């Protein structure tokens, strides 16, 4: 209160001296604010339009030239745009989905630990650490993944391939060095962990104390209390947090670019190299060598990625909104 009352004193004086000016400023200010609000709409529309405009040669241009470029990109593996973007989209979704599965339970665990298990002071410190981890640049995760994790994790994947190899997902032999979808998904999981955790933690902390105490008062154990009151309360929040994490994983570029040995197939073999590639990493990888039609093709794939992430995020918001009502 005290901070606000001070500035209001001179305000009154000046507004009394120039009342007409103030009205005009009022309108201008309102106009600017409205314009900024609308600018958000314009910006999003501009993203779609500019991308569409640059990708236009791909859709409306000389199809023969396009297919030559795509053949050139892929070494003859794909001849048209959908044949090109299909495997990329598959790879993108595959990597992001596995990352989400890996991150989901761990982040819920951490969120519960912070919100319900850790002592208060420790919880505050942990919250802070989680927030900081969300801020570590992806290029550093890529650097770490490519140089530290890849050589270190081979024995583990080898073990997985040996003992779980009967599951088609883990069909061996594990690639060495493991620059594979499995390793990339692991790094992405680490990257989206803080995002899901911090949202889930906030939701869990909002669980009405009455619900929790009612459960405990009925003799529930702590876990039963969580299962009966906290988890149902936080369900929609957790789902939307996961969707946000998924959105982030779908669009992640650097970590994938720096770790994955890319391929262009519809393959579920997570432990083998040169199987899949993601849209975002593919753009960054092909971009330097692409000519103008090549850039159009890449922007076309970017447009597909934009649409996908747009839908995922929209869905996430819808879920939270519904739960909020």
């Amino acid at each position: 209160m005290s901070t606000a009352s001070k500035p209001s004193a001179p305000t009154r004086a000046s507004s009394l001296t120039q009342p007409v000016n103030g009205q005009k400023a009022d309108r201008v200010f309102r106009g600017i604010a409205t314009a900024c609000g609308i600018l958000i709409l314009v910006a999003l529309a501009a993203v779609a339009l500019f991308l569409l405009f640059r990708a236009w040669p791909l859709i409306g241009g000389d199809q023969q030239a396009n297919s030559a470029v795509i053949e050139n990109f892929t070494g003859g593996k794909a001849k048209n745009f959908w044949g090109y973007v299909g495997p990329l989209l598959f790879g993108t979704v595959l990597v992001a989905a596995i990352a989400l599965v890996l991150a989901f339970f761990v982040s819920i665990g951490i969120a519960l630990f912070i919100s319900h298990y850790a002592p208060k002071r420790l919880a505050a410190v942990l919250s802070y650490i989680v927030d900081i981890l969300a801020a570590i640049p992806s290029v550093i995760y890529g650097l770490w993944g490519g140089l530290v994790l890849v050589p270190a994790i081979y024995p583990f994947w080898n073990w997985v391939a040996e003992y779980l190899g009967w599951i088609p997902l883990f069909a061996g032999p594990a690639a060495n060095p493991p620059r594979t979808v499995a390793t990339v998904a692991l790094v992405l999981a680490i990257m989206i962990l803080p995002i899901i955790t911090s949202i889930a933690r906030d939701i869990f902390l909002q669980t009405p104390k009455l619900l929790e105490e009612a459960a405990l008062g009925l003799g529930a154990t702590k876990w039963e209390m969580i299962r009966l009151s906290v988890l149902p309360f936080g369900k929609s929040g957790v789902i939307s947090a996961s969707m946000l994490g998924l959105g982030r994983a779908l669009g992640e570029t650097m970590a994938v670019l720096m770790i994955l040995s890319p391929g262009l197939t519809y393959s579920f073999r997570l432990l083998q190299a040169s199987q899949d590639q993601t849209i975002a990493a593919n753009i960054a990888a092909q971009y330097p060598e692409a000519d103008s039609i090549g850039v159009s093709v890449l922007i076309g794939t970017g447009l597909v990625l934009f649409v996908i992430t747009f839908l995922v995020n929209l869905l996430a918001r819808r879920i939270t909104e519904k739960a909020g009502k």
Partner: protein
Amino acid sequence: MRSNLARRALAALCGVALIAVAAACGDNTDPSDRPVSNASSISGGFAGAGASSQQTAVEAWIAGYQKTNPKAKISYNPSGSGAGVVTFLTGATVWAGSDKPLDAKQVEESKQVCAGSTAFDVPVYISPIAIVFNLRGISDEDHHINMDATTIAKVFNGKITRWNDAALAKQNPDLDLPDLPITVVHRSDKSGTTLNLLEYLKATAGKDWPYALSENWPNDVGQGAKGTSGVISTIDQADGTIGYADLSQAGGMGTVAVKVGDSYTEISADAASKAVADSTLDETVPGANRVVLDINHKTTVEGAYPIVLVSYDIACPVYKDADTARFAQSWLGYITGKSGQDQAEHATGSAPLPDNIAQYVRASVDAIEVK
């Protein structure tokens, strides 16, 4: 409030100005490097673009060239061969670096930028391509593995899958080859290095290498990695890997000695030079003044190493602008001359142009019209 805002804006501006002043510093210039007095008259900014394989060599050349031509500001954008040629054909650059010679269509297009004449290409950078591997107990002991062309093709083809394969053991009786799977590492991006290796395999391995020539890796064997450095780092990270890279990047790694004639040749700049010297000019290419090499991959010259990357510079025989023409002649003359080639060999381990080829190159460069 308003004056406050103005003050803040001023402070921000000052900050930006400070950054701008700081911009000039930070360059790693040698304070003792004073411009020589007998400096040539070539001055101005000149740009080139193209093959990334040449990048290190070009950096060394620029440093060497500027010692005698301190007023010339030269830049090279390693944007890739394809992009480099496209940029050259728009007239934005003086020359282009490319891992493959111009095709007929591009020669025709070059009339637009070369004042009616057609562009020519000369080899400037010959780098031996090493077949590098990582095999504990062998590569780290500085041993080489002997392979003939068929074996190399079969390894890269996925037909030989283990290091103790009979074909390998027979050629390397002195080595104790482990029972370990072979992981092939190849380029995942388009590359002149890939193309040159494939040319070698196609020419020498016959039916064991059934793929068409391409700048993309043709099969699904092994792992892809982006760029030469990607290949090297991937090989570094695991035991049992094999791949290919320019010799300049292969320092400290195990390299394959390739069978030439009856013996196995270890990779070296001189050995690559010998193979190039045993090659002929491709006379079928359209256009004048062009020096396009037809590498003799099947060479049997003792001590020759036949897997080489030949990178060309593409320039015009006639430029619209006299200054540019003089620069082009002097620059290409320098890099293809003795001191330029030595400089590149020193910096990257490239093979110097053999004399029999260099004479053609000189003739082409001299043919640039300088008024």
